């Protein structure tokens, strides 16, 4: 009997990882196919970002730095979409830029997926502008503090910044109503905090991947007014947007839809952790009963 316990325990404790991979993949695929999801509500960490945009003075521009590459897009792109929707709904011009080399493409994707489809009346240069990627990371942020034209004489389409209506009244970073960095790593939100938020009197918020979230909580709420972490943070923002602007509920809710498979994956991981611990417990019980 004790041997049987021991065998079962060692099986539970040292499962071949391919079983874990298989079960995880199967559960995620099934939940993707069934499309089960539930709307989320904004927590106290996400709500301030929504409130800030709602309460910005009319026409105040928002700087959105898409500091990620395609790998982390599934977590961060829904945030970019929701922020774009919110800004355009409330009449705030958006200025996109990126600290990542793949940033131009990430910006193009938001333009194509959200602006072109959902806001056909929005005009480039008036409602949004894309500055694109520039190399330099924290040094780029530092040099934009006083003047955007120092490193961005034109936008990606080649229009001189002075002629762009969306940036009327904007000289440096401090002239934005809100800066949001959607950050996959370095350079990203941390650099924005150190070189813009802490130095200038400008409200700063962020979005980050799930892995990066613990790193940014120490900055909340003094140095960043809010933080969206991973798909859950994006889903919370979508929830706030759906409640505040019900006319928009049916629109692009990719984070809310993605929470179904994410929930399933979390539950699988919890189940395997419990399984491993059940093995450990069984082994201890078996040893205790050994004369």
């Amino acid at each position, binding site marked *: 009997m004790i041997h049987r316990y021991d065998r079962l325990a060692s099986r539970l404790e040292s499962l071949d990882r391919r079983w*874990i991979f298989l079960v995880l993949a199967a559960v995620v695929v099934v939940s993707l196919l069934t499309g089960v999801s539930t709307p989320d509500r904004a927590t106290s960490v996400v709500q301030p970002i929504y409130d800030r945009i709602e309460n910005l003075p009319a026409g105040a521009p928002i700087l959105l730095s898409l500091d990620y590459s395609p790998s982390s897009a599934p977590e961060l792109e829904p945030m970019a979409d929701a922020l774009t929707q919110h800004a355009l709904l409330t009449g705030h011009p958006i200025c996109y830029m990126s600290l990542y080399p793949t940033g131009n493409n990430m910006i193009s994707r938001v333009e194509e997926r959200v602006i072109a489809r959902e806001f056909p009346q929005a005009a480039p240069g008036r409602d949004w502008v894309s500055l694109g990627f520039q190399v330099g990371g924290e040094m780029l942020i530092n040099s934009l503090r006083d003047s955007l034209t120092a*490193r961005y004489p034109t936008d990606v389409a080649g229009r001189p910044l002075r002629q762009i209506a969306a940036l009327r009244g904007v000289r440096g970073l401090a002239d934005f109503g809100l800066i949001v960095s959607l950050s996959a790593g370095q350079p990203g939100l941390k650099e924005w905090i150190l070189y813009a938020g802490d130095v200038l009197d400008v409200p700063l918020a962020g979005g980050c991947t799930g892995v990066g979230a613990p790193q940014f909580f120490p900055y909340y709420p003094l140095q960043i007014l809010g933080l969206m972490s991973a798909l859950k943070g994006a889903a919370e923002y979508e929830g706030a947007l759906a409640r505040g602007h019900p006319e928009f509920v049916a629109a692009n809710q990719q984070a809310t839809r993605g929470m179904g498979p994410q929930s399933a994956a979390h539950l699988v991981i919890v189940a395997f952790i419990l399984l491993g611990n059940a093995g450990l417990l069984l082994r201890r019980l078996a040893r205790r009963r050994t004369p």
Partner: protein
Amino acid sequence: MKQRVPQIILSVTAVLLIISAFIARPEDGNAPYVQRMLAFADQEFATWFSILTVFAFLLGGLNLVATHLVKIRDRGPDRYYSLVTLVSFVIVLVVGMAKLGGPPGLQGDVTAPGSWLSTVFDAVLSPLHATLYSLLAFYIASASYRAFRARSLESTLLLASALVVLLGRIPAGRYLTAWIPEPVAFLRVEELSLWILRVPNTAGQRALMIGIALGVIALAVRMIAGLEKDPRSGGDGS
């Protein structure tokens, strides 16, 4: 001399940049010369940095080509991978430099929608990135299974925190503890999860950050003062 000149450049540049971070940007041209110079350094070093970075890309690209050409020439076991690497490298380079399918000219956006580079990005790079990144989910699952075991008091606390955060970050977790009455709502799993992230996690992160920041400052001070031994120098390390 070969070591002294780079050290002087490093020290002068670093000191200038550090000082300029604390110097107010002059409002007009009447500010003292030193103040204007420091502001100039703060502003322009970023541009110089960008230019130098381009040369670093060049060095990397040349090394990549040289390494893989040698592998193909030597008919090593990995030569087919090297061939794929080189062909991909040349295709992306030509497509990007010629701005195929996109707006031409120096000002033309190389990644404009419809350009070939944009297609390569959407059809090749993007799925490859997504695939590799999604492997993390599988690796996190297997690593969590191995790591989170209640072997001691500390590891039991770690296990409990992990379970709370895992459940607190999904709607299912919310429904699991929705029955907990409002006066003790802080016991609900999503509230506990947020508390773990905001309180114990923040405390630990801050302690780590202080130690790391001091480590970075100490290394920087040694480098600026020329006291950090150049690892490329020979000798016995003393």
